[in-house]
Each structure stands twice: as C-alpha cells, then as structure tokens.
C-alpha cells in the first residue's frame, strides 16, 4: 500500500517543545476526505493584483535598507514535478536586525525606515519566481530560555487549487540556530532540508547581492488520499 507523502515531511500539530502548539493543536484525529470539487478549484488572482515592484523589497523606502542584499529564485512545482503557473506567492520577513514592523514584536532592535519586509510575486509560465530582499536577522523569542529564531522568510502559497494552500518558512544554509529551533525541528528529519535554501551565487548580482535558490512543491491539485 502506498504511503502518504505528506505524512513524511509535515510537522505534527502537537509539538510540545513549541509551546504555543499545546493549547492550539486539535486533540481529536483529523477526518480524512478527498478535496471537494470546490476545493479542487481555487481563487484566481488578476494580473494586476501584483505589481512588478512588489517582488523587490529593497525599493520600498527612499533609500536602500540596511543589511545583506540577496536575490532569491526558485520554482513552484506540484508533486508530479509540473510547474504551478501564475500562482500567487506572498512573502514577509524581519529586517536585517531581526525586527518586524508589527505592534506585538517587542524585540528591542531597530526598525529600518527603508524596509517594510513585505512582498508578493506571481510565478511565470514555468513556475519560476524571483524576489530581491535583504537577509532577515535572527531574533529572540520567549518560547524557552535563550531561544532565538533562525533567520527565515515567511511564504504564503496558493497554487491553482484551494486544497494546495500552504504557509511555510524558508531558512538559510549553515545556520547554527536551526538545531535549537523547535519550529524548524518540528518537521520530520526527511523534510527539514526541503525548507533550507541553497546558496547559488550566480543568481545574485555581482558585487551587489548574494544569490539563493529555493524550490517549493505543492500537493497535486487532484491528489486524493493515497492508499485509500
């Protein structure tokens, strides 16, 4: 009997080391159903929903933001390896000091008046995307003593079907904080490397920006529970 792929890589709901899961994770098992035909369709975003400038997070202010400039490229694919075309990708992140411009962020680090840390892009006909930003900083959090979140960029993905919807985080290669981050560690070992970008210098801008590559894979739009 085929095993589900998703069970191999996705974190559980309850992961006690990440304290906020303890009161928010369902206690009952989930009910497994095939996506309804409604859920096999999905929201259609107009082309002008995204303007080209929103893929470059470094041009939001009057001058360049502080930090290490980077270019991130990659492809959005489904589990059959097919490109997911013209799909919305939303990103948000801390600034280079590890600070979000958000009222509940109490980290005592400076805001950057030239960095909002928010962007969006549509994939092209080959499922490719490209964003320009600065590398986010790590920041402390209250989950456990001396806890620090590793640098990460948040991703919100739509795919072409509602059932493909995914929110996740991308991490950076070689970050020693990955080993102590319960959010990253909640992912089963087989899935962890899928959340880490590769350094890909030639995708950067010579003398200006580092290059990284990160591909994302969504479940097939017509996928049904396997082994059923």
């Amino acid at each position, binding site marked *: 009997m085929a095993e589900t792929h*998703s069970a191999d*890589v*996705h*974190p*559980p*709901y309850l992961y006690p080391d*990440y*304290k*906020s*899961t303890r*009161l*928010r*994770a*369902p*206690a*009952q098992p*989930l*009910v*497994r*159903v*095939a*996506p*309804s*035909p*409604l*859920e096999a*369709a999905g*929201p*259609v*975003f107009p082309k*002008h*929903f995204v303007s080209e400038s929103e893929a470059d997070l470094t041009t939001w202010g009057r001058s360049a933001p502080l930090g290490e400039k980077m270019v991130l490229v990659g492809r959005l694919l489904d*589990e059959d*390896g097919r490109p997911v075309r013209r799909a919305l990708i*939303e990103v*948000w992140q801390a600034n280079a000091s590890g600070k*979000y*411009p*958000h009222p*509940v*962020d109490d980290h005592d680090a400076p805001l950057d008046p030239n960095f*909002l*840390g*928010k962007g969006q892009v549509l994939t092209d006909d080959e499922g490719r995307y490209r964003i320009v930003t600065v590398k986010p900083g790590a920041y402390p959090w209250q989950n456990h003593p001396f806890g620090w979140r590793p640098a990460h960029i*948040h991703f*919100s993905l739509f795919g072409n079907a*509602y059932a493909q*919807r*995914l*929110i*996740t*985080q991308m991490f950076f290669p070689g970050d020693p904080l990955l080993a102590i981050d319960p*959010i990253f560690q909640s992912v*089963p070992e087989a899935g962890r490397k*899928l*959340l880490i970008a590769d350094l890909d210098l030639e995708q950067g801008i010579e003398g200006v920006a580092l290059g990284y590559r990160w591909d994302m*894979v*969504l479940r097939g739009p017509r*996928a049904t*529970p396997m082994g059923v």
Partner: protein
Amino acid sequence: MPKPTPSQTVGPFFARDLLWKDGGIVLFPGGGDRITLTGCVFDGNGAPIYDALFETWQADPSGKFPSGHDGARPYGYGRVSTDTEGHYAIETVKPGSFKGPGGETYAPQISVAIFARGLLKALHTRVFLAPIELIKDDPLARAIGDLERLRTLVATRDPNDPKIYRWDARLRGAGEAVFIEF
C-alpha cells in the same frame, strides 16, 4: 516525485502583510442575498485566539464555483484575522449545494482554513449553512458519522437576524471542531 514542502506556522507577525482592505467581504459576479458568517476562535482553555488568520472559499448561491475576479480581487475568497476577542466576520452570499464527481451532493458549505501561531499546519474544515438534519448525506457528514461531532461544523442562525450565521471554532478540548485532511 518531488516531496511536498513542509508546512510551518504563519507566526504572530503576519497582520500587516497578509490582510487586505475589505478582505472579509467576499465578492461574486452575480447578486444574491448577503449573509454574515461570524464567531470566535478558541484554544484548549477556552481562551480567544486573537492572532489567527481565517480564510474562506465557497460556491455561489446556485452552487457554481467562483472562477475569476472583479479586476482587483478573486471571487469567492475571504481573508480576515481574528481580533482581540478571537472574533471574525465574513460577509458573503449563502452558498448553494453542489455535486461531486460521483454524483454525491455536497450540502451548502463554506471551506474554512485557520492559520495561527502555534499551528504548524493549517486547520481545514467545512462549515455547513443548513440545519443538521438536511446535511446527513454530505460526504463529510458521512465520513464523520457521529452527530455530536458533526454539530461542531453547523453554523447556527441568529434568531434575531436570519442573515447572521454563527460558528465558533474550538481548536482543542471540549466542543473541539472537526478538522479535515485532504
């Protein structure tokens, strides 16, 4: 086959980035009576979850799936965050029932996804906008079986205002809503 990208939490800092102006007003090309789906999201202690992202996707009153947009935003899709009391509200049309590929009938329902700090994966479910005795043949109702559990997914009509449907989502413990995986 490539493995799917693992899910991670939306975290506490999404509000400025993922919320849209009027994201709680769901658009459709046709008319139809407007209703409001509203309620609260609670944790395992019954405390309100004040930092959840609440998304909806649904058919129109004739059971037709939205496909397209009004030039600015997609049809059929709602997105709000809960407030300090855990409260959300989606203004929309009442969805019609629709057929599945095997001829099965899906009762009037709104597909809901909840994301939040502490949720490492989205919580998906379907909220029914019809009395419980009229939804028993729905594929999800059949999969759940147990009536008490099914009741956690039935929105109740406000006795004073029939345009208001109330649905509270208890994520854990007593009255825990049924959540689904595809």
